[in-house]
């Protein structure tokens, strides 16, 4: 499968994520959009990793280690995303307790 399709798919997912972050006011949906962007990047990394691996095998390197670092990154990103989600959700819970809403536009106290 050509790499081009993966790139298009990832860009589409990433753009949906950006638009989601920019347009929605619900904190949980913004969170989901961020996850979407992260996963778009993950997809990209895995796709490129695979592409490099195939290229290496075709060139005669049969060890199968080429492009592995991209896949390693994906694991790290997943770990960080999980940690981020737990902290972020905790913040959203506290936010809901305080202002009885998850609308980020109510949270403009940083201005002052």
């Amino acid at each position, binding site marked *: 499968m050509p790499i081009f399709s993966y790139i298009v798919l990832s860009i589409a997912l990433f753009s949906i994520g950006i638009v989601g972050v*920019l347009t929605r*006011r619900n904190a949980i949906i913004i969170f989901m959009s961020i996850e979407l962007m992260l996963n778009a990047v993950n997809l990209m990394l895995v796709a490129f990793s695979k592409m490099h691996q195939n290229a290496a095998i075709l060139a005669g390197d049969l060890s199968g280690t080429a492009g592995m670092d991209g896949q390693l990154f994906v694991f790290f990103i997943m770990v960080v995303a999980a940690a981020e989600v737990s902290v972020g959700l905790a913040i959203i819970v506290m936010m809901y307790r305080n202002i009885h809403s998850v609308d*980020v*536009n109510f*949270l*403009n*106290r*940083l*201005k*002052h």
Partner: protein
Amino acid sequence: MNNVLQIVWLIPLLPLAGFLVNGLGRNYLSKTLIGIIGSGTVLGSFILSCWVFLQVKDGNTHVAEYFTFMAVDKLVIPFAFKVDQLSSLFLLIITGVGFLIHLYSVSYMHGEKPGHYGRYFSYLNLFVFSMLLLVMGANFVILFIGWEGVGLCSYLLIGYWFKKQEYNKAANKAFVMNRIGDLAFLIAIFWIIAKIGSVSFADVFAAENLAKLTQTDVTVITLLLFIGATGKSAQIPLYTWLPDAMAGPTPVSALIHAATMVTAGIYMIARSHVLYNMAPLTLNVVAYTGLATALLAATIALKQNDIKKVLAYSTVSQLGFMFLALGTGAYVAAVFHVMTHAFFKALLFLGSGSVIHAMGGEQDIRNMGGLRKKLGITFWTFVIGCVAIAGIPPFSGFFSKDAILLSAFEKSPLLYGVALFTALLTAFYMFRLLFITFTGKFRGTEEQAHHLHESPLTMTLPLVILALLSFAGGWIGVPEVIREGGDKLTAFLAPAVASVPHEHPVTHSQEYFLMALSTGLVLAAIIAAWLMFRNYQRKEAAGLGKVLENKWYVDELYEAIIVQPLHKLGGIFKSIVDPKLVDGLVNGVGRAVNYGSRQLRLLQSGQVGSYVLLMVLSMVLIFAIQFFLRK
């Protein structure tokens, strides 16, 4: 020979030390101690100068280098002193006459408050120090430091009685006039640096370096130096500060007019005679400026009624004579006249100080008269001074003035005629001053008449010494025609500076005739003065006399064509340029920043969405730049 170099730095250092001690300790030291320190340091310098004189008498010249004063790229300016015949002669004049003036000041200024007394002596010492630096400097930059120093000290001393606004104005005038000349001098130094790449006299006057200069260079440099000299030595058009400098205490006038300051210009031109010899045009300018100044100042002196003003204009006039000598190439005659003039002008000023002292501060000669009986020593020394300046043989002024007149005659009879006429006027106004002041009836108040007394010994002693010098000081320059080998000064100065021989030297009989002519005319002028002023009655001047009394209205002219327009210009700047342009610019910057920050503040809305939007937009922007602008 090297012992000269080892000790010569002490000569300027002593007055500097005196300046520091007296200046810092002016509130703690007693008046006696201040007087001793002030005079003693100058006396020390004088003794050292005598010793230096003995060292260079036989034609040695030395340059003592101490440290690098300034080094920029290839230009290295050492702090160095030049000890040769010219500078040693000036050293003797400055420290010798300077010491007598210090001694005189001890009594003259005794009425001052202790703090001010110390201040006075510290300035006086600084003045001597600057002048010594000026004549000892082995390059134009050290000379210029001294040059600026005497300008500063003249400002400080003219404005010594700073509580009188008028005196402060006189001090400012002296300073500003000097600055104008100094600027020209500075430009000349830069020009020399640009063309030759060195400021040391030894380099600048070396033949291979002079060859680098075009005729234009030489003419412009010498003209600029001459403009510098007109400021310091009070020549047309920058002479008006000198008569106003009378605001200072009388010994200061003596110091400025006789030993220091005004002779700086003469010294500088004599020092640069190599350059001047290459610029005939400049020499003519110098000669005619000097002559015009001599004549103008002499006519003004005819009608002045302030005892010090007469002497001030006579100084300007005599300086004009010296410049005439320089302009005709008679450098030695100019230096000779500097020396004799230092003697008799210091004598006359100190004598006038003695008169003013006796009269309780009165300076108007119309209120004097008949002082001869009460002020015996002052009178007789004053007579000697007048005879010397008038130029009667064998007094000193005769020989130096004769040398100048002779040189003028060899250059052109026109110069000679005007110079001779000026010499006549000199004799006339000096004896007018003498007769009005010392003969006839006393015209002052009862109180003044009661107060009249001869000055104390510390004041009369310098007078007597200076009178002796005024009498005999000219004998070192007796013309060859009178006595074979009599002109010792020319022989002495020969290694440092020599006059330019003229194409058509006068014959001996001609020279005798010229001497007899000038002496006869001067005697006639003295007799005329005696007839007119021996029983002086006060009367108002009219016609030409009034113009002369008002100094040809030169001050008013300067006021109208320079000062007033400058004031107007200042007014314009004050009312338009400063509030509109400068304030507008400064306030505009402030206002722009204020406005900009108020607009930028709107970005910080506190809305998370807008922050994210900005973040995304800037990221897109950075990517765009990466893509399209970077190759």
